[in-house]
């Protein structure tokens, strides 16, 4: 049977179990879209910007654990994917990005819509391929899915010139298996290292478990819970790890780091052993590295040997898959009773991990996040953008289940949340999916309201509108003498510099409620604290997408805060 390159691509995607592609058409991918026109097994979601397609594929992958797939044309289509690919790369998200490319005969000639996409994407992909002939296509696609989903997961880009898509072959079979001499990730932890870890745990007087995104990726939640409960060791999780250990569990002490819980930061600084599982000691976690956990020995379990001792010197490295390592560790680790150390840590934790001063006059953003938690019973998938609202979400929504927080932890990509929520909602039509956003971030991919509306994707958007780029404003307030340079989104009404000048706008633009309505999306606004709950109830009850705007205290800050470059126990508290 004769098949074109485009037909082979779609057949390969089917064989890889792909159910949905997010993307945008263009000149050199027309042959691929022509095949999609007749493909029933795969849904295609047309986003309104390629960046959103990449984030949606990423959100789909985070919510399901499957490989997310996005598709864009050459040149600008491909470059628009890059922020989304880099976001997935820094958070180790399995993704395959398919890009069209100009014809092989035109490569390197500055042809129309040509960009060196493998060159541009090289440092932000786990691997990438330029397909030079139709004969290479099946093996490359098999390898792309294999590389994206195994070892430390990550995005893989496949760049397909249009003549390869159009080429015809009679000799096609999709490989059943793949074996690469240069890529053999080690998943079984070395048993001697696991024994050393168990010995260190038995010896420790003040141990802490630090779990990260790797626990989510490897599906090691039950093993982690078992380890923690058997040994009574307090658990902190990184932002990427939230949900891999129940947020309501008595042993949970919040996330550590810049906006982490006091309990987590103090525990890390005072402990004598950190059992790190699938976390990479990001600078937002460690604070001043030289004074990070000064008393502690460190066990570091990670699938990626390059993550070991990258930031923090590790005493007992265990390279492998977190779940497989924990299964072995749980067989030999000794039980441990809660003792004075637990008491001390729980005293730091107090009744609640985080607190703020509520108000009856003005809506506090933290109160909205708490209300979202109450109204959803903690059973939603929550996406966030990046900034203050992201930190409040991490602090005040208690994530009990894995894969329920979609957030750009590594790259910190504003505009991530709405499309990521879209991807998660397409994957999980039964589960409520909410994007908690700031008024700045939401505008970075606001065009996706059209995608939500036309496909009736039931994402609920909660905008915490403080009229500022709040996180940068907070730094300007604390470290730059309140010089709010380019962070007021009202063009100045609220900042000292512009008050009373022409630049100062009374009216916030856009009117988010009116904007949503122009997309045929139900929209609600709360301006007073007593409206929070009713607006949320109304918005969440909508069958399709809905937008809820909350006008919040403009200069509310995220606390606690460990200023950049300070040790974790130097905490600012409001």
């Amino acid at each position, binding site marked *: 049977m004769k098949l074109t390159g485009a037909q082979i691509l779609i057949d390969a995607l089917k064989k890889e179990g792909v159910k949905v592609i997010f993307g945008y058409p263009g000149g050199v991918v027309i042959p691929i879209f022509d095949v999609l026109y007749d493909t029933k097994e795969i849904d295609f979601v047309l986003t309104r910007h390629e960046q959103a397609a990449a984030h949606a594929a990423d959100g789909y992958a985070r919510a399901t654990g499957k490989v997310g797939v996005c598709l864009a044309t050459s040149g600008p289509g491909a470059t628009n994917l890059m922020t989304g690919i880099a976001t997935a790369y820094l958070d180790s998200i399995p993704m395959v990005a398919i890009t069209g490319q100009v014809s092989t005969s035109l490569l390197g000639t500055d042809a129309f819509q040509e960009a060196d996409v493998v060159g541009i994407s*090289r440092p932000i992909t786990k*691997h990438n391929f330029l397909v030079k002939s139709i004969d290479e296509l099946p093996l490359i696609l098999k390898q792309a899915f294999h*590389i994206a989903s195994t070892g430390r997961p990550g995005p893989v880009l496949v760049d397909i010139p249009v003549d390869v898509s159009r080429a015809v072959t009679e000799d096609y079979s999709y490989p059943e298996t793949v074996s690469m001499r*240069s890529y053999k990730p080690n998943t079984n932890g070395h048993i001697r290292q696991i024994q050393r870890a168990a010995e260190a745990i038995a010896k420790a007087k003040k141990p802490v478990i630090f779990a990260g995104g790797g626990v989510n990726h490897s599906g090691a939640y039950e093993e982690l819970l078992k380890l923690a409960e058997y040994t009574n060791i307090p658990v902190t999780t990184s932002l990427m790890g939230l949900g891999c250990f129940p947020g309501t569990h008595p042993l949970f002490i919040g996330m550590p780091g810049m906006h982490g819980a006091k309990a987590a930061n103090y525990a890390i600084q005072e402990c004598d052993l950190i059992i790190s599982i699938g976390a990479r000691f990001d600078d937002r976690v460690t604070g001043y590295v030289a004074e990070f956990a000064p008393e502690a020995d460190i066990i570091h379990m990670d699938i990626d*040997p*390059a993550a070991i001792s990258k930031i923090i010197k590790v005493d007992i490295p265990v390279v492998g898959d977190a779940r497989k390592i924990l299964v072995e560790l749980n067989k030999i680790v000794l039980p441990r009773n809660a003792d004075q150390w637990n008491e001390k840590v729980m005293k730091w934790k107090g009744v609640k991990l985080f607190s703020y001063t509520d108000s009856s006059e003005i809506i506090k953003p933290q109160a909205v996040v708490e209300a979202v938690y109450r109204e959803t019973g903690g059973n939603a998938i929550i996406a966030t953008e990046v900034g203050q609202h992201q930190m409040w979400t991490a602090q005040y929504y208690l994530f009990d289940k894995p894969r329920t927080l979609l957030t750009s932890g590594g790259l910190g990509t504003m505009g991530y949340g709405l499309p990521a929520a879209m991807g998660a909602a397409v994957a999980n039509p039964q589960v409520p999916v909410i994007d908690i956003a700031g008024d700045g971030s939401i505008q970075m991919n606001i065009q996706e309201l059209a995608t939500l509306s036309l496909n009736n994707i039931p994402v609920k958007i909660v905008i915490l509108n403080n009229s500022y780029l709040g996180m940068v404003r907070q730094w300007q307030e604390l470290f730059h003498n309140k010089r709010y340079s380019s962070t007021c989104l009202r063009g100045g009404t609220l900042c000292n510099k512009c008050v009373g000048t022409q630049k100062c706008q009374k009216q916030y633009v856009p009117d988010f409620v009116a904007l949503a309505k122009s997309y045929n999306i139900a929209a609600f606004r709360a301006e007073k604290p007593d409206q929070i709950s009713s607006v949320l109830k109304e918005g969440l009850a909508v069958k399709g997408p809905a937008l809820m705007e909350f006008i919040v205290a403009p200069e509310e800050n995220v606390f606690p805060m460990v200023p950049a470059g300070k040790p974790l126990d130097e905490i600012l508290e409001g």
Partner: protein
Amino acid sequence: MGIHTISVLVENNSGALSRISGLFSSRGYNISSLTVAETDDPTVSRMTIVVDGEETILEQIFKQLNRLIDVIKVIDFQGEPVVEREMVLVKIDSNHSNRHEMVGLGTIFGAKVASVAPSSITFEMMGTRSIINDFINMIKPYGIKEIVRSGTIAIGQSRK
């Protein structure tokens, strides 16, 4: 800081070189020399990279090298007996009056005359990086017109 000579076995395909050099350039590290050619297996290339930098960062780069999908094996020759060779072609100002003297100087270093022209002489020489440096320093006063160094290649002395 320390000079490392490393050998990298990679899949012989178009992206491999830039993937590897990118790991150095993204950290602002300059590669002192890099050579690459096919091995006995035409699908595998061998690169020899000489780089100077902080130990902790180099260690990190070596781990990242191992992580690249195209990389089959990384060998760091640090602290290991190794045979290192580099080749140099160097063209020097020369005329009939000092030609003899220069050939003599070359002989001391084991440099061969590759070509002679009325106003220049070109030597070819193979040796370790430091012997080549010594030779170049000796002939510098005569006036170097042009110099081409191949970069170091290296092979471990162990029986493996």
